[in-house]
């Protein structure tokens, strides 16, 4: 009795806060937990029977793990897994380094107006869809009229057929992704830096520490927890590739597949003609499970090394 009363008391006391959580929690239940039942589709061969989704779902035949085989059945499996993982690792590592560097640079600019201008300029690409970015890149790389080939030809070199030459694409893709994402992530770090206690820097200056020393001994250590959280979150999505980046930017050019085919594009190309819901769900479930394992593993590692910085 006492316990129940206590619960009510707590509830009453925290009511405003609980109310604040409510919309988010509802959203989570609606959009994240309810649809989870749908993952069962990955073990079924979904066929509609004309009576609506639920009825079709129950009347579809169980097929065990058969829907997963197409992800592993061929030698493409190695290529798409390698591409997805390596690109995402590159994005995480380079993205973090670049974003932190940019954030520090921005925070050191004395002229606030200019700082805002740079920030906005860097942030703008974040709002652009990859379809549009794809055309930007195309205007650089078009074989006859592209900017890069015009420059090459001016210097007496022969133009390169970019969209049929796979060697350059790892760099092009990483560069494009950095250009697009850096503004957003650097703002996160910049916000943290602005919040740091200025007196630490003042004290360091009194002791004659150079700018470089201040960054190394104050800013970076203070940023560490945030970097770890951001990286942990990114690791959870390491098995998801940005479809827009890998499909629209290389203009779906077949000759580039060895370096542009990732899990998401592979699934799309394999299933767009057959439209098998079960197989598409299987691919999604597989990505989620691997992501889940990776987050748990990396969080575990962080906790072993430094207990305070772990996410949970």
């Amino acid at each position, binding site marked *: 009795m006492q316990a129940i009363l206590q619960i009510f008391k707590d509830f009453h006391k925290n009511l405003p806060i609980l109310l604040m959580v409510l919309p988010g929690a509802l959203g989570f239940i609606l959009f994240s937990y309810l649809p989870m039942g749908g993952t069962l589709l990955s073990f079924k061969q979904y*066929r*509609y029977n*004309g009576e609506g989704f639920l009825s079709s779902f129950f009347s579809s035949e169980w097929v065990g793990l*058969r829907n997963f085989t197409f992800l592993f*059945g*061929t030698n493409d499996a190695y290529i798409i897994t390698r591409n997805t993982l390596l690109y995402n690792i590159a994005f995480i590592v380079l993205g973090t380094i670049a974003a932190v560097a940019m954030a520090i640079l921005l925070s050191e600019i004395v002229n606030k107006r200019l700082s805002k201008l740079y920030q906005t300029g860097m942030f703008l690409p974040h709002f652009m869809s990859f379809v549009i970015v794809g055309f930007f890149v195309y205007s650089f790389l078009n074989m006859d009229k592209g900017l890069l080939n015009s420059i090459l030809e001016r210097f007496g070199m022969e133009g390169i057929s970019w969209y049929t030459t796979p060697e350059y694409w790892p760099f092009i893709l990483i560069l494009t992704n950095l250009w697009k994402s850096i503004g957003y992530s650097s703002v996160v770090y910049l916000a943290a830096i602005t919040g740091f206690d200025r007196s630490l820097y003042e004290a360091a200056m009194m002791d004659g520490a150079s700018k470089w020393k201040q960054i190394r001994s104050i800013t970076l250590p203070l940023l560490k927890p945030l970097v770890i959280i951001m990286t942990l979150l990114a690791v959870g999505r390491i098995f998801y590739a940005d479809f827009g980046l890998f499909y629209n930017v290389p203009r779906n050019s077949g*000759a580039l*597949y060895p370096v542009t085919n990732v899990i998401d594009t592979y699934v799309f*190309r394999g299933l767009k*003609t057959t439209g098998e819901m079960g197989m598409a769900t299987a691919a999604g479930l597989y990505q989620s499970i691997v992501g889940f394992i990776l987050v748990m593993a990396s969080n575990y590692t962080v906790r072993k090394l430094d207990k305070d910085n772990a996410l949970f």
Partner: protein
Amino acid sequence: MNKKSRLSLLLVLVLACTAILSACGGTNKEQGAESGSSPDAGNQKAVELIWYNIGTPQKDTDLVMEEVSKYTAEKIGVTVKMKQIDFGDYTQKMQVLTQSGEPMDILFTASWGFDYVQNARKGAFMELNDLLDKHGQGIKETLDPAFLEGSKVDGKNYGIPANKELPAQDVWRFNKQWLDKYNLDIAGVRSLESLEPLMKVIKENEPSVVPFMIDRNYVPNLPYDYIIQNLPMAVKLDTEDFKVINILETPELKEALTTMRKFYQAGYIASEVATTTNNSDLTTTGNWFVDRPTTQPFADNLWSASLGYPVVSTPATDSMIYNWSVMGSLQAISANSKHPEEAMKFLNLLNTDVYLRNLVDSGIEGVHYEKVSENVAKNLDKSRDYDMPTFAIGNVMLNYLSEDDPSDKWEGFRKFNDEGVPAPLLGFNFDGSNVLTELAALNNAKDQFWAPLMTGSVDPDKYLPMAIEQFKAAGLDTIIAEAQKQLDEWRATQK
């Protein structure tokens, strides 16, 4: 200042909330309207049919459908609500809509959009044979029997094909402006190689003109009938033994690819062709010399009118009846339709009734078009608000002619249909459900190699062996064996 900024923040929040709410509310309302197949207020007994059709959504669709409903409510007791989905989205959106059981009665399907055979097998459509006998007599009378026969899936009809051109024939289409300027003769043109001397003249004299206008979907014409379009398994057009072969290993393909490569290197083809999805910039400016569309009777008139400058064409292939040409446009009844009988009555009327067919196709007389004579009509300015894909909505031969059309246009169609020769695989539909894993891998291999090879963008000597290896690794031989098995079984039932 502080107050002001707080106010603007509040404003932003409110705006965001309304945006989210209205987005949710909008879909809810729509769903409510869709599920309501209740009779119209005016017509107590009329049943509302929901009709999903392909095509860019038009401003006046609802207006015209109101007019249609008035007519059909009186004739057969139904009202019609049409929902249009644009060409590029149709397949994907319809896959989701049908799989989630969205209420609908009639829907467009074709070999190239919301795949007819595949979705018939998956159970998206209602079987129509009994309904056709009961309410579809008019369709059976007007439609060339080859259409209904050729669009059977596992022996049953699941869709009503539009009465239009039955065979498919590719032509070389020339931009007449350049033919005249350089006095070129197209009489001897037929094969791919025979284009070369003409393109050479254009390339040398008109640097800004693309001699051979193709996009990434181009595939050279080969004397083979494909099991699945654009996957490399086929039988020869003049086959006797119906042996399924890997088309990549045929000498004809090798030769065609070598020619394409030669054209590409000579600059007859745009250098970015392997990633080009449409050439509307070229067709608008007229800076092209030849391309290869699929024809229909009097197509030159139609093309010249829509392009705005004259073109002429000459055959590139024989006129043959393929599975995909028979299934070029069908209207099916959805498996979850609550009113299949009424839907069939409506389809029957659409395919036999001149007034209804023209109303759905061209809009309201006096608003969207006006009649010039008994069966000739002229578009009015308002027709821009109601531009329908004619081929998608039933019997085209009921349509009023436009002023430029020859008066025997539909006679020409009938003759064209009679002259078509059936391709060897007409009536055979491959069932991929045993090899889904291989098909997924095969589609990836196809996407990787098809466009670069077929357009000449890469060297076939180097890439063709790579493609063959990749297709084999993806399981091509398994699928060919499965196709051969099904084909042999099918032929046994045909005798």
